[in-house]
């Protein structure tokens, strides 16, 4: 089969072009957000919010509202609940997150099991991107564009918040409101992403692209660009893989993200595993005993220059 046909053949199906649009849009928004999430240590929060939206999605289907409204209400509600429990107990954040999101996820399961005929649980959990309607495509595109616009508009403040919260406070920024904004945008991003890959796997889109880009660069702006580019490549590759190999679309997209991460993890300079091993071999051969095997060698070289 020639290359053009390889790429064009799937696109003759409306459901596949819709899937491509939804997946790429969701992946781009999630990839931008992921750059702040991983720097703030909020990865688990992404997991929590995505699981916590299940009762919202189920209730929305029962009542006949757009799924995104129910999902957003419960996603934002979960964030608020975690914040309240955290600030009124001595428990650590990950503990509170664990308690809250499992409780909400379980109530979602209970609701779904009580009304089995109306809701396809598998579609909510693992995504049903091949079955999205044109209306749902628009929901994703509009919410995605909105989220992306706010993220990019506030990107310098968000980076400051992630880097030095105290300084943000000292120069008069309301850090509490800014955190709330970020978590609200996280809830929106989850809503956008769960159409594409489902509740369980949406966290991959919220973490992996940022993590991959972090390994590749020391500049935040470049990290944003790389995170987005890599996630677009992975999403498109995932959709095609899903078509030709006949595997779950959500799984294929997430696997492609993981594949990109793995390649970067192995070969990125200077921190990639292969470079680390090469350096370690070189340094033991050179007899530099006790030289730290960790990744800082570029920094160390720079420091000795300046000293």
């Amino acid at each position, binding site marked *: 089969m020639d290359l053009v046909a390889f790429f064009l053949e799937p696109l003759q199906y409306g459901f596949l072009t819709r899937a491509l649009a939804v997946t790429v849009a969701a992946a781009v928004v999630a990839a931008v957000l992921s750059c702040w999430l991983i720097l703030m240590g909020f990865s688990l929060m992404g997991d929590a919010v995505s699981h916590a939206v299940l009762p919202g999605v189920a209730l929305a289907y029962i009542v006949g509202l757009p799924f995104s409204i129910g999902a957003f209400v419960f996603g934002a509600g979960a964030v608020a609940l975690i914040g309240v429990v955290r600030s009124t107990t001595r428990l650590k954040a990950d503990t509170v997150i664990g308690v809250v999101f499992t409780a909400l996820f379980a109530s979602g399961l209970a609701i779904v099991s009580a009304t089995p005929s109306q809701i396809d649980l598998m579609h909510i959990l693992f995504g049903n991107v091949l079955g999205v309607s044109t209306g749902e495509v628009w929901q994703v595109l509009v919410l995605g564009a909105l989220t992306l616009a706010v993220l990019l508009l*506030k990107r310098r*403040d968000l980076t400051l918040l992630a880097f030095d919260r105290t300084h943000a406070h000292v120069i008069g920024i309301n850090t509490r409101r800014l955190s709330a904004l970020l978590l609200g945008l996280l809830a929106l991003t989850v809503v956008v992403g769960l159409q594409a890959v489902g509740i369980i796997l949406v966290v991959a889109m919220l973490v992996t692209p940022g993590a991959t880009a972090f390994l590749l660069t020391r500049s935040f702006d470049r990290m944003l660009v790389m995170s987005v580019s890599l996630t677009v490549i992975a999403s498109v590759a995932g959709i095609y893989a899903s078509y030709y190999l006949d595997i779950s679309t959500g799984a294929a997209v997430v696997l492609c993200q993981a594949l990109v991460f793995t390649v970067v993890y192995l070969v990125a300079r200077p921190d990639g595993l292969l470079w680390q091993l090469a350096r370690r071999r070189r340094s033991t051969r050179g007899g530099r005993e006790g030289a730290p095997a960790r990744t800082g060698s*570029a920094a160390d070289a720079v*420091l000795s220059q300046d000293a």
Partner: protein
Amino acid sequence: MMSTQQSAPVLQVDHLGVTYGHVRALDDVSIALAPGRICALIGVNGSGKSTLFKALMGLVAPDAGEVSLFGLPTTQARKRQLVAYMPQTEDVDWTFPVSVADVVAMGLYGRLGLTRRLRAADRSAVDDALERVGLAELRRRQIGQLSGGQRKRVFIARSIAQDARLLLLDEPFAGVDRTSESTMIDLLKTLRNEGRSVLVSTHDLAGAPALSDEAILLHGSVLAHGDPTEVLTPQNLALAFGQAVAPTSGEGDS
């Protein structure tokens, strides 16, 4: 600068009390600091230095007393960009993907518009601040690729860019070699001579007299406040550190 701000003390703390749960971190602390002074805040870990800093920045709610900066409530002082804070080295994520110039630019954010986009004047303010701390050549470098002394100077440059009138420095000499330390002290003295005030939290007893115009010995409450040589007497230090400490005991990193 408004005249009310010029005449008012840089910071005025009256009968301040802060309690965490059942722990009284600060009790009846009263301090006034005149403009253009470097003041060393000396005490052991747990003596309330960090809590006092947090109270000055409005990060803890006092259960007694009042704090004002330049005659203003802390909220107003923050909104007017009057206060800058330099974090402890271990509180900074040195792997964070920001450059030296990025961090210094963050000093300006309080004066910038919604998106915090730098204009030409702002970029030259960043350049000037970098020039003053001697980091102009390293402006593009990621912050983790700096030496201990350079790392500290990035944050001093940030407060210069901010044009803050009161600098709060949290353990600025920890992990810094002697040469960098004396560079920093010279820098702080220049800033003081411009009329800025500097409050330095430290447990470096030996360095305090060389650095500061006055010293405060803190141990939950103020044990002594005045000329460094008068404050750092063996008797006072015994009270603050719980045991006899010779004031010339060098490193002071215990």
